[in-house]
């Protein structure tokens, strides 16, 4: 056991580090609002030039095939690059979905001509992509979608007309293209009547509306489709095979599901160190120490598990659904730590004014944001199901929705 890179990995790390040092500002000492992501419009503006630089230097599409502009390297190299990039102010958020999910789906299902057309601009940051999957009535039951695709005429290459609504679409407001799954046959069984497309987000009939979250900001959108036309040439996969295509996309999502943001152990440890309770420093209080130890142990458990995953990747293995653990554990911890940090500040804990409370209100904003982390990208319940079914091999929940026409499945009023 050791923590050293292989010679190949080490060489790549050196190359990445020197690229970053020459081209980006380190987080430590850099613009604080950019470093923490507080300055969202600044981040957005900085994204395109940064992505272009990465692409020019060979750090975009690290795992993507060389023939489409990628580097053709193994996933561990992507991880190494990200480790290094994490030390710098490197705004890449708007490209995560496009490069992580949309372009890989295109590369699996689009024509050669389309691949050549779309991969390069996405890599260089010239075109932004979004993913149009979730629907209001769908939630965890992704295949329950109702956005309809009807053919305009009888020809084999007739256009498609899209009507319906998608939700939770990140970046829809500034995306150029999107991948879209629709229901083209309401009489087929649920998973059989879906068809998959890509489309221009500038198409007539698309309306994007921001969704305000419970925590205040609007990080997601609703996207409404009214008679939106898509040529059949932009269909990905066969008619009625949209579920299979979606699974390809989702395979890539699972790997991208991240860890919850701060506050984590370090922040609450610092708070405890600085907080005076009625009988001394909070860090000396046995109850506080008990909680701190629990969070440290869980945080280290995730960190050390990540080392194991990296080792597997370094050996060429693909990380499995075990990575669901990461979000499940860290989202809960995020909420617990946030609540506890508020409690340690006593009555002042309810105040959100960054100039008044500890760590610029990090615990308060964590308390507000954390419920979303327990839901987005797979709820706690879905993650436990994934672990139970795909890791442990336990039976699926009883499914009454896999046979019969989709049209006849019971639906609720919510």
């Amino acid at each position, binding site marked *: 056991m050791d923590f050293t890179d292989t010679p190949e990995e080490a060489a790549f790390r050196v190359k990445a580090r020197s690229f970053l040092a020459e081209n980006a500002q380190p987080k430590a000492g850099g613009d604080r609002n950019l470093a923490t992501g507080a300055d969202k419009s600044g981040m957005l503006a900085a994204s395109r030039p940064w992505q272009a630089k990465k692409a020019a230097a060979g750090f975009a599409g690290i795992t993507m095939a060389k023939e489409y502009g990628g580097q053709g390297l193994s996933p561990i190299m992507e991880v190494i690059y990200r480790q290094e990039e994490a030390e710098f102010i490197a705004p890449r958020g708007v490209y995560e979905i496009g490069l992580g999910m949309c372009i890989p789906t295109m590369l699996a299902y689009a024509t050669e001509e389309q691949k050549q057309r779309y991969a390069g601009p996405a890599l260089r940051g010239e075109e932004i992509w979004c993913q149009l999957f979730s629907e209001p009535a769908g939630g965890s039951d992704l295949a329950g979608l109702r956005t309809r695709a009807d053919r305009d005429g009888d020809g084999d290459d007739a256009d498609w007309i899209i009507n319906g609504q998608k939700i939770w679409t990140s970046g829809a407001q500034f995306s150029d293209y999107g991948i879209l799954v629709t229901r083209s046959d309401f009489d087929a069984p649920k998973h059989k009547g879906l068809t998959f497309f890509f489309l221009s987000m500038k198409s007539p009939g698309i309306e994007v509306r921001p*969704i305000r979250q419970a925590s*205040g900001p609007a990080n997601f959108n609703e996207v409404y489709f009214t008679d939106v036309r898509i040529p059949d040439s932009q269909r990905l996969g066969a008619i009625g095979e949209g579920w299979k295509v979606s699974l390809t996309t989702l395979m890539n999502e699972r790997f991208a599901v991240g860890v919850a943001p701060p506050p984590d152990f370090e922040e609450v440890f610092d708070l405890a160190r600085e907080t005076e309770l009625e009988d001394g420093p909070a860090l000396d209080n046995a109850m506080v120490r008990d909680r701190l130890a629990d969070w440290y142990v869980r945080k280290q458990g995730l960190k050390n598990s990540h080392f194991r995953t990296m080792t597997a990747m370094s050996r060429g293995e693909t990380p499995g659904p075990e990575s669901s653990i990461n979000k499940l554990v860290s989202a809960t911890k995020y909420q617990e730590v946030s609540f506890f940090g508020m409690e340690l500040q006593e*009555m002042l804990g309810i105040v959100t004014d960054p100039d008044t409370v500890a760590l610029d209100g990090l615990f308060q904003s964590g308390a507000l944001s954390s*419920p979303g982390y327990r*839901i987005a990208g797979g709820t706690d319940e879905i993650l436990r199901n994934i672990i139970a079914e795909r890791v442990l091999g336990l039976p699926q929940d009883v499914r009454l*929705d896999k046979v019969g026409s989709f049209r006849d499945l019971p639906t609720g009023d*919510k």
Partner: protein
Amino acid sequence: MNFEFDDDQRMLRDQARRFLLDKCPADVVRQTLEGEQPFDQDLWRQFAEMGWLGAAIPEEYGGSGMGHLELCVLAEELGRSLAPTPFASSIYLGSEALMVAGTEEQKQSYLPDIATGEAIWCLALSEGARPATATNTTATVSDGKLNGEKVPVADGDIAHKAIVIAKDGSGTGLFIVDLTGTGVERSAVETLDPTRSQAKLSFTNAPAERLGGDGWPLLEDIQDRAAVLLAFEQVGGAQACLEMAKDYAMGRYAFGRPIAGYQAIKHRLADMYVQIELARSNAYFGAWALSTDAAELPVAAATARISAVEAFNYASKENIQVHGGMGFTWEFNCHLYYRRARQTALVLGSLRRWKDRLINALSQRNAA
């Protein structure tokens, strides 16, 4: 054995619930949430007219003289409806403080205006992130003038009078200060629950009138009383969360059936129910102790508070979880309860300190 509210009290509950359903639906709460007003003056006026503000104030001081059990009944409904008013500050803390510690003259002078709603009161204790203790108190009164700073003070921006905890020559005392008078500066502070306003108060030689004797034991008695009343608000809020979550889960289908039929959801709702029932029963015991001035009040109040804080925290966060993505939108009301749960959890001091008080009280009882 009669450990339930009686028929009249239940009737009061039904009336209050109907009134609040009608006059305080979510869009009314949202007017305060969105900052259109610091609190709902219309509601406040109507509470006064119905005698709610003076529910526990004897008729001789202008109250409706119903009693503390009736006030508990009202508190549960206020919690359920998230009514954006300074009820807790003015009634649970202000009016209770005057009744516990006021001289006959002070009661005569101040209670009637509380009952009519003309005067809003608040309690100014916290001086920032440090735990509020006698030792930590730096606000001082000398020659009847108060100096110091208090933050946060719930409803400090809208109250007319404050009871301020400060030190004078004889130790810690409670002092009545006119917030509309001289020597007072105040500014609202932003909080996680904008439906309940909070402020920073700065006092520079503000005239201060002493209330009662040894301040710290009095303060703890007042807090115990407020803890019981607030526990009913929290139980009401938690119950509303359970009902929302249940209603949503019954109507929301996934994989061809209602999500309410999945054990992950069923058992979570069962756990919510269990926590709420325990909290409710503990609140009832607190109500009994409060209404009978029982020696058990310190233990009963801490028990009720801990139980209610935990039940409301759990119910409000798991309500969002049961709703999934929709529950995390601004448009759904789940976050209103989540915010209020956090506010009520902190406004009388942290769970940690109440657990400490509980164990202290139990130790003393066992030692006696």
